[in-house]
């Protein structure tokens, strides 16, 4: 088939909602965009283990410890599915991980913020996983088959995580004065970074147009962000807490909540590597990888001997 024919064929599949599969012909740029996005997603799962992992040893009850440990373990599992989805596009897990360690590949900036109190574990579950779900529900319909299928599995677990996070905060919100303060403080610190998770405004998002045409993305950053604000602004009423935004109010005309301006300077600064924990997170990942090298080598050497 000619290149033109292949492109036409590919375009028809996208138009008719037929998933693109690993062995199908696809434009190079489509492949690269998917690799970039799926690997970034995988890295976010793995780096995302660190801020929550920070509280495993100090979880306040045995039940909370078990739930948190299982949750962080789920994230490792999500990382695995996503690295595998990436491999179907012709890049090995090792190459993908090297790109993270070299700084070439990005991960979600939210994980560059520190978890200072136990309430942060609740806030991450509720806000960060909540924001992730909005994005991921959209991605269950993404045009690349392996990515869409990985998302279906991941979404089920994420919604469980979000409920757990909300439940942590709900208990705090009904607790002692210190617990209530801890709860509000965590919401204050995590709210704006959560809004930033949806990426730059549509007008400034460089990758969005083409991704929408290819149906990799199906909703714009601003649309997704609005969905998130509408959801959280309602849920926080149950907690009896406040979102740290004086401009947040229901807009009858738009049928949405209005909200204040995001600090984009902070957003870009963290993306560029200057957030509170960028260095610690990457260092921790590199250290685990480097210290694990002899283990991976030993496993490979042993497997080789058994052949």
């Amino acid at each position, binding site marked *: 088939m000619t290149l033109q024919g292949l492109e036409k064929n590919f375009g028809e599949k996208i138009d008719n909602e037929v998933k693109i599969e690993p062995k199908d012909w696809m434009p190079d740029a489509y492949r690269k965009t998917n690799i970039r996005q799926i690997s970034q997603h995988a890295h976010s799962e*793995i780096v995302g*283990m*660190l801020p929550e*992992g920070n509280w*495993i*040893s*100090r*979880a*306040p*009850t*045995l*039940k*909370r*410890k*078990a739930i948190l*440990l*299982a949750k*962080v*373990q789920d994230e*490792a*599992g999500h*990382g*695995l599915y996503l*690295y595998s989805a990436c491999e179907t596009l012709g890049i090995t897990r090792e190459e993908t991980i090297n790109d993270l360690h070299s700084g070439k590949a990005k991960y979600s900036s939210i994980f560059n913020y520190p978890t200072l109190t*136990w309430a942060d574990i609740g806030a991450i579950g509720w806000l960060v996983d909540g924001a992730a779900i909005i994005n991921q529900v959209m991605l269950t319909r993404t045009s690349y088959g392996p990515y869409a299928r990985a998302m279906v599995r991941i979404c089920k677990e994420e919604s469980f995580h979000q409920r757990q996070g909300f439940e*942590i905060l709900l*208990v705090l919100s009904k*607790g*002692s004065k*210190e*617990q209530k303060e801890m709860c509000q403080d965590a919401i204050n610190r995590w709210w704006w970074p959560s809004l930033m998770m949806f990426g730059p405004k549509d007008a400034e998002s460089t990758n969005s147009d083409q991704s929408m045409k290819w149906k990799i993305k199906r909703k714009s950053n601003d649309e997704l962000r609005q969905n998130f604000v509408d959801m959280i602004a309602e849920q926080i009423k149950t907690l009896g807490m406040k979102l740290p935004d004086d401009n947040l109010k229901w807009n009858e005309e738009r049928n949405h909540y209005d909200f204040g301006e995001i600090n984009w300077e902070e957003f870009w600064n963290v993306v560029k590597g200057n957030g509170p924990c960028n260095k610690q997170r990457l260092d*921790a990942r590199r*250290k*685990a990888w480097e*210290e*694990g*090298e*002899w*283990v*991976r*080598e*030993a*496993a490979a*050497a*042993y497997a080789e*001997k058994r052949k």
Partner: protein
Amino acid sequence: MNVLIDYTLHLADNSLILAQRNSEWCGHGPALEQDIAITNISLDLIGQARFFYQYSATLIGNEATEDSLAYLRTEREYRNCLLVEQPNGDWAQTILRQFFFSQYQFLLFQHLQDSNDEQIAAISVKTLKEVSYHLRWSSEWVIRLGDGTDESHKRIMKAIDELWMYTGEMFQPASYELQAAEERIGTDVSSLKEPWTNSVNDIFQRATLTLPPDRNGKFFQTGGKDGKHTEHLGYILSDLQYMQRTYPGNEW
């Protein structure tokens, strides 16, 4: 009744402290698969600890709960073996600690399935399935590291050197273990030493490793079961208990 409390607390503490140690790997494992596996084991161990603490709490009565027992007892009240509180070290040391302990738990719970105490018997039946998996997984890793590369061989040898002195304690019964064995609630742990040594030796042979020489037990460190621990336990508890100590009496 007191014997049963002491005994279940000992079993619970063993599992919890090793769970706490293993969980330090979460997010830092040598590869994702291993990260997931060691976290799984940690989760199983927390599950075991919770069963035993919950049972202890019902025996103690009053206001005791699984959390008051885990979070509000001091270093001197913890009754875990010294082995489980030893630092993770490198992957070889973590694997070897797990292997030594899983081999012990495997033999122990086989006996405890037939305990006169129905609760202990029931928990042991459930636990044994998990422990069989922990034992298989850690055995495979001991073999892989022993017979992998020069470096992995050296590292597992070093781990043996670090940990062997803490293995003897598992088979030296504390007073509550002796009494539990007498009442057929527990079992005589000294009788587990020979099968344990034989099984460890089998795996070591496949891993091209050798058992350290028997020095009539003089080399072994003891005391954990009676609340005399290594210096590590205090730090483990200060992390573990931080929230409950800082905010006493709150619900979480």
